[in-house]
């Protein structure tokens, strides 16, 4: 599965990516919201791991852009945030992980969300035909 990791902290992006690759996923990275928008357009990820605090365009704004795009509206998004208290209201996401999160739990959540996804993907594939 294609997973986009949007995280401005290179060390964390690298680590998360390595763990996802170990689980057999294809991983793309972006360090800012602007980069991430370009990336989702190109690679059509099956899931996005998203940091909230980023330069250029923060996670919330990126999420709004993403949800405005019909092709991306159903892509599951998992938040990874270091914000002291996350204001989750109005955030159209499937899971929220507060840093420092448990990598095993994060990977389990990713796998669960991806396992639930093929149905939605196939429905959309049907309508495309």
């Amino acid at each position: 599965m294609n997973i986009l990791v949007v995280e401005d902290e290179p060390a964390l992006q690298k680590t998360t990516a390595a763990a996802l690759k170990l689980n057999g996923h294809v991983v793309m990275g972006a360090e800012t919201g602007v980069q991430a928008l370009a990336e989702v357009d190109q690679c059509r990820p099956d899931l996005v791991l998203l940091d909230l605090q980023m330069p250029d365009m923060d996670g919330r704004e990126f999420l709004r852009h993403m949800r405005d795009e019909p092709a991306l509206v159903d892509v599951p998004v998992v938040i990874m945030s270091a914000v002291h208290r996350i204001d989750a209201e109005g955030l159209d996401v499937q899971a929220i992980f507060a840093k420092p999160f448990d990598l095993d739990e994060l990977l389990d959540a990713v796998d669960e969300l991806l396992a639930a996804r093929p149905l939605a993907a196939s429905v959309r594939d049907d309508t495309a035909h």
Partner: protein
Amino acid sequence: MIAADERQRERLQCIRDTSQALTRAVDFDGLFSMLHLEIVSALAADTFFLGLYDDASHTIEVVRQAEFNKELPGGTFPLGHGPTSEVIRTRRPRLIRRWSEEAPRVQVQYLSGAPGLPESAIIAPIASGEQVLGVVALHKYAPDAFDENDLLVLEAMAAQAGLVLAGLGRSERLTTQLLRRVSELQAILSTMADALLILDSTGRVVALNHSARELLCADDASVVLGQPLAEQTWGQWALGAREISETLAPMIAALQRGEPAAEAEVQLQNHRHRTLTFTGTPLLDPLGRATGCVVIARDVTGRREVDELKSEMLSVASHDLRTPVTVIRAQAQLLRRAIGRGAITLDDVNGGLAEIVSETQRLASLLSAVLDFSTIEAGNLALQRQTVDLIALASAVIDEVQTTTDHHQLELHVSGSAELMGYWDDRRLQQVLTNLLTNAVKYSPAGGAITVDIEACDQTVIARVSDQGIGLRREEVEHVFERFFRGDALRRLEGSGLGLYICQSIVAAHGGRIWVESAGPDHGSTFCFILPMGEASLTFDA
């Protein structure tokens, strides 16, 4: 016998009249006049003398004296050896039938055209309990003019006078105390930093102290005493005063009903941007009815700023500390997963561990930044000065930082001697240079030369750290030393926003100054600081 009885009755009546009259006295002057009048009319005498005794100074103050009903000026004299002083000393009344034979003569200043000196006298102490308050004396020029009964009458009147005098003294003492309390309170009110308003039961301003006047009457507006706050005609510019009055309205209304009022707060919207809190207390009469209220306004702007700073610090620290902890945790878990699957090389393990070590260092440096920040904010940044060679110190820091990068060339340029000794805190200076150099590395991602120039100049030394990095915009140059500042261009790179603030505090603690020069974005930056050589003996070898 009948004549004697008659005389006795007259004397008793006289005592009774005097007692009644004296109780009407409301002040000392009234009391003395009544005493004079009553005694002289009861006991026909040529002269009347009334003195108050001051126990502390052992002096007698003449408060009334008269001769043949003519008032004479008073005065103060020390306790002497005449019969009057003796009466005060012994607290026993005295009858003198023939002064020239019985008692030492004392100088009497007031005798005006009298035939010689008085020969007869009756003298009684005016006492309250054990304390002698004064003395009353009657004289006659003729000998044998008074008898024991006259002395008894005078004694009775003096005793009565003692009671009244003590009572008046108490109330006068109370008045004096009250006046002192009032002036103490006025002094407190006028010097207290908090603004204080006193309002009556109808909400009219009764009194306000200097701080309240300053607070409400900025820009020359004035507060009219006797008018409710809401009806004051504030100048159109005194926006703050109107805001205050609006905030206070519900509080004052509650207080007027005698109810306790909750603390109110207002953040003034005008140019002063001050935050004020108000607390009020109703003034109640003995029956518990509200007679008015006292409102105290406190400027908490500084305290609020500190609160905001603290919460900003908490949020920055928690955010910035979470990141390395997350990496360390995730990296360790990743290694364990990889090892568990047997899908890992020794190089992978090494790389992962290196990552953990470097994140731990980052965590440690963040923690010291937080600690330094709290120390600085608490005003506890203490320097441990000693003789330091700045050139050796800079050289060591350069070597250290050079190990972290291979695409920057760090160089030290020194003009003058090979040593530059000053009296500084070497650990703190090392911290400043390390911070400036790691910043230079961090903010010149394309690499290049980074130079440290050190130059001694008179009693000071100037150090410059220059890079060829991303540079700073003009507005960044102005704010770069502020706590939590991170320029837009800098945001992409890690940092708590405290490093330069801490550097500035350290340089300032040394009595120096730090600043930055930059020709603009992508033109590099030069961070400079100037330090006095320090207080200890100058050991700079020229």
